[in-house]
C-alpha cells in the first residue's frame, strides 16, 4: 500500500465517521412542506416510474392474494367492479353504476360497463364477472371466500348485468367489491393458466403484467387495450421490494427510486426538508393496538371458553382490569416518543376518515392513572397485576412494548415483554397461548371489515376469544341495513361497548406516508393505503 493510498483511505474513513456522527445529511435545502394526495401538475407521456414497496408481494392472483403490497401492484393491473375515491366513497369502476339492492336486501344487481377488454384482448362481460366471482367464492385456498360468504349465487342476467343472490342482506358488499373480491380476471387466461394465473395475470387495467423477478421487482407496462389508455402517460412501472425503511429512503434520496411506500416516521422531517422530494400523507383506515386473550382456549374459530394457567388471570376475567390498563396508556405520549408525533392516537376501530365514522365512534377515554388505580381497587386484584405482552421482535414493536410497560407500571401493572419472531407470534396467538398481543390491522373501506372479524363471537379473526351477544347483534344489524345513519349509530354503540369490555385496546392509527420525487406528478394515494398511478407521469 502506498502512502497516498493510506492518506486517501484515512480521508474516506474520517468522512464516514463524520457522517455517522451527524446522523443525517444536511443538504441545506429549503423545506417543501408536507404533502397530501392532491397533485394535479401536468405530466408528459413516457418514462418509467420506480416504486419501492416495503415487502415482496405474494401471488398476483386476486383470489389468493393477501398482502397490502400486493394490492398496490393490483391497482395498476387489475381494476375492480368498484373503487374508492379520495373521500373514501365507493364509486363504480368496471361497474356502470352502484349496485341496485332489492327491498329485502337479498338480491343485488350490478350493471357493467361495456366495450372493456382484458389485457389479453378478450372482452369483459357478465360471464367473465361470474367466472371470477365464482372462483373467488369456491377455489381452494381462496382468501375471498369469507369476504363473499354471504353471496349464494351469481347469475348472468344479460351480457352487461350480473345478479348476486345473498344469504343475508350485506351492506358492505360494494366495499368488498372495491377490493380484490371485485377484481375480474380474463377467463381465457384463467383457463390457460389455471392455478398459475398469478404468474402471468391478466385483468382490465391501465398497465399489464410484464415480468417478475422474485424478491427484486415486478414490471408492468402500459396496456393499449385499456379503455382509458389516452390518460395513461407512463410507459412502465417497476415495483421493487425493499423491506428496510432506511434503505428505501436512501434510494429515494439518491434518485434510484421515484416513489417510496411506507416512509418511516423517523425519516419524515428529513424528507419534508428536501426540495426535490415531497410527502403524501393520508389517514389510514386501520388501527394498531393490543389484543387481550379473554377466552381463546382452543384456537381461532373455536368456541370461547375459560383460560387455564399460565394464560388465565384477571385480564381474562375482569373488564375493570382491562379498562384500567387502557387508562394507563397515554396515547399522545406514545405517538410522540415512538413515532415522533407522525401518527394519530386511536381509541377505536373506526377511522375518522371512514364514511361510517361518528362522534360516538371517535370517543376516547382519557389517560387517567388515578381512575385506573381506582378500577383495580374495585376489581379487588392484588397489585402490581402481572401480565405478559407478546410483541413482534422488531425495533418499532419493542419500543412500543417498552413505552406501554413503563406507562402501565404507573397504574399498577407489571408487564413482562415477550419479544417473539413474527411467524412464531402468529402461531402462539392464534392458538390462544398468550395474554396480551401487540398487533394491528391495515384497515378496510367499510368499518364492518375492521370490526366484525375481530370481535364477533364467530369472527374469523377473533383471536381474543371475545363473545358478547349485544355486539354480535349490533354488528349483524349494521351489516343488514343500507341506511348509513343507522349503521353509524350501530358502530358507535359497538365502539362504546368495546371500550367498556376492552378485548382490544386501540393505541394509534398509522398514516399512509409515501415519499415521491418532485419530478413525478399525479401519484395518488387515498386512505386505503394504495398508490394509484393511472394518470401519473413525469412533470413537463
Amino acid at each position: 500500500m502506498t502512502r497516498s493510498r493510506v492518506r486517501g483511505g484515512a480521508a474516506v474513513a474520517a468522512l464516514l465517521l463524520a457522517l455517522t456522527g451527524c446522523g443525517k445529511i444536511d443538504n441545506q435545502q429549503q423545506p417543501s412542506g408536507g404533502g397530501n394526495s392532491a397533485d394535479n401538475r401536468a405530466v408528459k407521456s413516457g418514462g418509467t416510474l420506480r416504486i419501492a414497496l416495503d415487502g415482496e408481494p405474494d401471488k398476483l392472483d386476486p383470489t389468493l392474494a393477501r398482502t397490502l403490497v400486493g394490492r398496490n401492484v393490483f391497482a395498476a393491473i387489475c381494476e375492480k367492479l368498484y373503487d374508492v375515491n379520495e373521500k373514501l366513497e365507493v364509486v363504480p369502476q368496471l361497474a356502470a353504476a352502484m349496485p341496485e339492492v332489492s327491498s329485502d336486501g337479498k338480491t343485488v344487481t350490478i350493471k357493467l360497463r361495456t366495450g372493456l377488454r382484458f389485457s389479453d384482448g378478450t372482452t369483459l362481460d357478465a360471464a367473465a364477472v361470474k367466472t371470477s366471482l365464482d372462483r373467488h367464492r369456491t377455489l381452494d385456498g381462496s382468501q375471498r371466500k369469507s369476504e363473499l360468504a354471504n353471496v349464494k349465487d351469481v347469475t348472468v342476467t344479460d351480457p352487461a348485468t350480473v345478479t348476486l343472490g345473498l344469504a343475508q342482506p350485506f351492506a358492505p358488499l360494494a366495499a368488498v367489491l372495491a377490493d380484490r373480491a371485485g377484481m375480474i380476471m380474463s377467463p381465457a387466461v384463467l383457463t390457460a393458466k389455471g392455478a398459475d394465473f398469478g404468474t402471468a395475470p391478466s385483468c382490465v387495467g391501465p398497465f399489464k403484467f410484464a415480468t417478475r423477478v422474485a424478491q427484486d421487482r415486478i414490471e408492468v407496462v402500459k396496456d393499449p387495450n385499456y379503455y382509458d389508455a389516452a390518460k395513461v402517460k407512463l410507459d412502465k412501472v417497476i415495483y421493487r421490494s425493499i423491506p428496510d425503511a432506511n434503505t428505501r429512503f436512501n434510494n429515494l434520496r439518491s434518485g434510484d427510486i421515484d416513489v417510496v411506500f411506507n416512509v418511516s416516521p423517523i425519516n419524515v422531517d428529513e424528507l419534508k426538508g428536501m426540495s426535490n422530494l415531497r410527502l403524501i400523507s393520508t389517514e389510514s383506515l386501520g388501527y394498531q393496538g393490543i389484543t387481550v386473550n379473554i377466552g381463546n382456549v382452543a384456537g381461532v374459530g373455536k368456541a370461547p371458553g375459560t383460560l387455564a394457567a399460565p394464560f388465565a388471570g384477571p385480564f381474562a376475567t375482569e373488564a375493570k382490569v382491562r379498562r384500567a390498563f387502557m387508562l394507563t396508556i397515554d396515547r399522545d405520549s406514545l405517538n410522540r416518543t415512538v413515532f415522533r408525533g407522525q401518527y394519530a392516537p386511536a381509541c377505536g376501530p373506526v377511522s375518522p376518515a371512514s364514511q361510517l365514522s361518528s362522534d360516538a365512534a371517535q370517543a376516547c377515554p382519557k389517560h387517567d392513572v388515578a381512575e385506573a388505580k381506582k378500577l383495580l381497587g374495585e376489581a379487588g386484584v392484588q397489585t402490581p397485576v402481572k401480565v405478559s405482552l407478546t410483541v413482534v421482535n422488531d425495533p418499532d414493536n419493542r419500543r412500543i412494548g417498552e413505552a406501554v410497560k413503563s406507562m402501565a407500571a404507573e397504574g399498577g401493572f407489571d408487564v413482562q415483554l415477550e419479544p417473539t419472531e413474527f411467524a412464531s407470534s402468529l402461531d402462539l396467538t392464534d392458538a390462544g397461548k398468550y395474554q396480551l398481543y401487540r398487533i394491528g390491522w391495515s384497515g378496510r373501506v367499510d368499518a364492518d371489515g375492521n370490526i366484525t372479524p375481530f370481535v364477533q363471537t364467530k369472527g374469523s379473526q377473533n383471536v381474543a376469544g371475545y363473545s358478547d351477544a349485544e355486539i354480535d347483534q349490533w354488528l349483524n344489524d349494521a351489516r343488514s341495513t343500507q341506511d348509513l345513519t343507522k349503521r353509524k349509530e350501530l358502530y358507535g354503540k359497538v365502539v362504546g361497548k368495546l371500550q367498556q369490555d376492552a378485548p382490544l385496546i386501540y393505541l394509534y392509527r398509522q398514516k399512509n406516508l409515501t415519499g415521491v420525487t418532485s419530478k413525478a406528478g399525479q401519484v395518488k394515494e387515498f386512505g386505503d393505503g394504495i398508490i394509484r398511478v393511472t394518470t401519473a407521469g413525469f412533470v413537463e
Partner: protein
Amino acid sequence: MNRYLARRLVESIITLFLATVVVFLGIRALPGDPARVLAGEESDPQAIAEVRASYGLDQPLPVQYVRYLGKAFTGDLGTSVRTGLPVTEIIAGALPVTLELAFLAMLVAILIGLSTGVIAAVRRRGPLEWASNSVALLGLSIPNFWFGQMGILLFAVLLGVLPASGFVPFLDDPVENLRRMIMPAVVLGSAIAAVIMRQTRSAMLESLTADFVRTARAKGLPRHQVILGHALRNSLIVVTTVVGLQLGILISGAVVTESIFVLPGFGRLTLDAVFTRDYPLMQGVVLITATAYIVLNLLVDLLYSVIDPRIRVGGAAL
C-alpha cells in the same frame, strides 16, 4: 488418486442425503406455519387449512419427506408458498447474483489481503506493516451493515457516482452491472481481506525464516523471486485453506450485503424464505447451499494436491 476421489464422492453423497433429512426436519421443527404466515393479518382458518392442504402440509412428515425427495431427484423443488413461482426458477435467478457477488468480493479480498499480507511480512515493524494491520483491524471490526450504509450515503446519496441498490445482469449491461456490484463487493470482501491479510502475513513470516528461503537467497535469486516464487507460494497452502473456509462465510455475509444493496441474491432469498416459513423455498436454498459446501470442500481437497504434490502422493497411497 481415483480411489481417493471415489471415496470422497461417496462420502459427499451420504452427507448430502443426511443434509436433506436434517433440513427437512429442522425446518418443520421451527414454530410458525407457512400457510399462517402467508395469511398475515388475514387469518381466515378455513383458507389457512386449504392452503396447508394444497401444499401437502397436512400429510404425515414421512409422506411429505418422500414426496419432497422424489421430486428433488427429478430437479423439481416445488413452488414457493408465497409467490407461487417455481423454486428452481427462483434459485436459478438468485444464484448468479450471489455467485458474482462472491466472486467479486473474493477478488477484492484476495487482491487486498494478499498484497497487504505480503507487504506486512516483508516490511516488518515498519509503517507499512502498521498501516496494513490497521486496515485489517478496520476490515474485521466494521460490521457490513454499517459499512454498506455509509457507502450508500457517500457514493450514492452525496456524490451520486454509484447507484444505491439494484442489480443488472452482466450480459444485459456489463458496465451498469459492475457499477452496481462494486460497492457490495468491497463491503463483503473487506472483512475477508482482513482475514486473508492476517493469515498471509503470519504464513509469510514463517516462510521467510525457513531453510528453503535461506537457500534460495544463498543461490543469489532476486529478492522478488524469493518472496513471490518461494515464500509466497509455500504460504499459499495456508491461504488457500482460509479462502476455502471464507467462501462459506461469503454466503452468510451475502445475506446482510444483499439486504443492504437490495440485490436479488441467494442470501436475501434464504432470509426471506426463513421469515416467511416458505418450506419449499427453504428446502431448496438449504439443499443448494449444502451441495455447494460439499462440492467446495471437495475442490479445496483437490486443490491441495495441485499446490503440494506430497498430498497427491499420500492420496494415491490410500
